[in-house]
């Protein structure tokens, strides 16, 4: 897989509900290079999902621009350059697991670079990658939430998108499942070389996964810090016990402890 183009976020602001409305994002500037894994961390309501939707071309910013591989985000979306994993799995209950992973192929047809006689094999291989071999013929209603989220991940990867946008994809999962999925995600990204923008409210998860961690403050959403993560890839779960990991986590957590965000910071694992 070719290394993908980067993302340039230039002065992006977003207001909801007219002039006296909520300012969800305020002057966001961020450059992400191709193949980079960036995590966005912030308390709920600080505009993380909004930023991801703007980057994915699902939402227009009030001001500012986003370019993805040199194109506007809307153009990049129309050219199907994004894979999006939502907070909820968003599987279609009437399609079996394999059918859900093949949905992009069915929708895209010839526009899918993986389209062809072996698109089914590719889907099956992806399901193997996310540890779901043997569940191809189950319906979403017959598998657990963690498995559903893995199907959603396989679906997002099935058409080889240059850029992966993930909105708290593992937020609702238990710690063990989350660890396993984090490892699988790193492995898959290593293989595909995709650029990843990953939203989470867990500092631990962000540091473990990302090359850089972007901290966002609420009301209005502003970048308070961009931290380089000093651990080389590939990573193992053990890096979480290294002193450098705890130090960085502590430092970033300090940023979150504003007036009403103490509760959130305390709740971090």
């Amino acid at each position: 897989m070719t290394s993908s183009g980067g993302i340039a976020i230039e002065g992006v602001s977003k207001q909801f509900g007219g002039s006296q409305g909520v300012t969800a994002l305020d002057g966001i500037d961020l450059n992400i290079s191709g193949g980079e894994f960036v995590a966005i961390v912030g308390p709920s309501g600080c505009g993380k999902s909004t930023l991801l939707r703007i980057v994915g071309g699902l939402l227009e910013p009030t001001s500012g621009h986003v370019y993805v591989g040199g194109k506007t985000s809307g153009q990049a979306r129309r050219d199907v350059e994004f894979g999006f994993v939502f907070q909820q799995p968003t599987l279609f209950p009437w399609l079996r697991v394999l059918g859900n992973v093949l949905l992009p192929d069915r929708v895209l047809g010839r526009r899918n670079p993986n389209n062809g006689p072996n698109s089914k094999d590719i889907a099956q291989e992806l399901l193997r990658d996310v540890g779901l071999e043997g569940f191809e013929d189950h319906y979403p209603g017959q598998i657990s939430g963690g498995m559903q989220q893995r199907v959603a991940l396989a679906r997002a990867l099935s058409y080889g998108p240059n850029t992966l946008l993930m909105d708290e994809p593992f937020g609702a999962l238990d710690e063990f499942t989350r660890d396993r999925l984090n490892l699988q995600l790193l492995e898959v990204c290593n293989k595909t070389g995709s650029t990843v923008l990953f939203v989470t409210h867990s500092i631990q998860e962000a540091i473990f996964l990302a090359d850089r961690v972007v901290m966002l403050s609420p009301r209005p959403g502003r970048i308070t810090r961009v931290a380089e993560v000093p651990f080389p890839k590939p990573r193992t779960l053990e890096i979480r016990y290294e002193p450098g990991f705890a130090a960085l986590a502590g430092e970033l957590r300090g940023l979150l402890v504003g007036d009403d965000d103490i509760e959130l910071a305390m709740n971090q694992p």
Partner: protein
Amino acid sequence: MSSIRKRSRVVDVLLRVLPSVVIFALCLVAWELWVNIRDVPAYLYPSPSDIGKELRDEGLSLAVDDLRWTMTEAVLGFLLGSAVALFTGIVFVHAKFLERVFFPWAIVLQTVPIVAVAPLLTIWFGFTLTPKVLIAALICFFPVLVNATKGLRSISSQAVELMSILSASKWSLFWRVRIPSSLPYVFAGLKVASTLSVIGAIVAEFTGADRGIGFVIIQASYRLDTRLMFAGIALSSAAGVVFFNIIGALERLALRWPDARLDR
């Protein structure tokens, strides 16, 4: 292996319908006893066994001559009313404005007493199939419309965003997402409509027909032939139950995924 599984499925079904059959049988027995003990006039209150005899003697000709006719009207009306309702629902979902304009009229259509409309249609169309089919369609329209509209709207905003990320056309969103997610609601509406359609056909026959179960019942009532009236009632409700179950079977075929059916 498969025969065991099949037998246990048959047993399952029997066990499921057994309670309602037993209750029904008990009611018949109580009715029979009441008619015999109180010695009420048989021409007013025929006993179940009398009705049974009537069905044995007249049932076949009733079924062939009249019930077949009534069910033709009901099924045609059901198909027409449901098709128009589905189409209207699709239009409503794509044009909110049209829904605001026309939905109040759909409610008016629903609240119009069909016993008052039926004679009108009979005046216009005569003793033909048309007024019966139209009345059956009219009575089917609303439940299917309400359910279809709700079903077509039941998609999540994230599902829409997913299709948008795939740069999917409106057409693709409609066929791959809206239609399948509406099916559970549509079938719930169709099941209600299937029972109503028989009522619609019979009511329409009351106001002017030369055959059909409604015609038989109204003629029998002029002659105080309560046995024949009951036989007609029994036959038409049996046909309604069969129609309802046919739609239910189609629903089971169409909605294969877990928890798809709304009324389970």
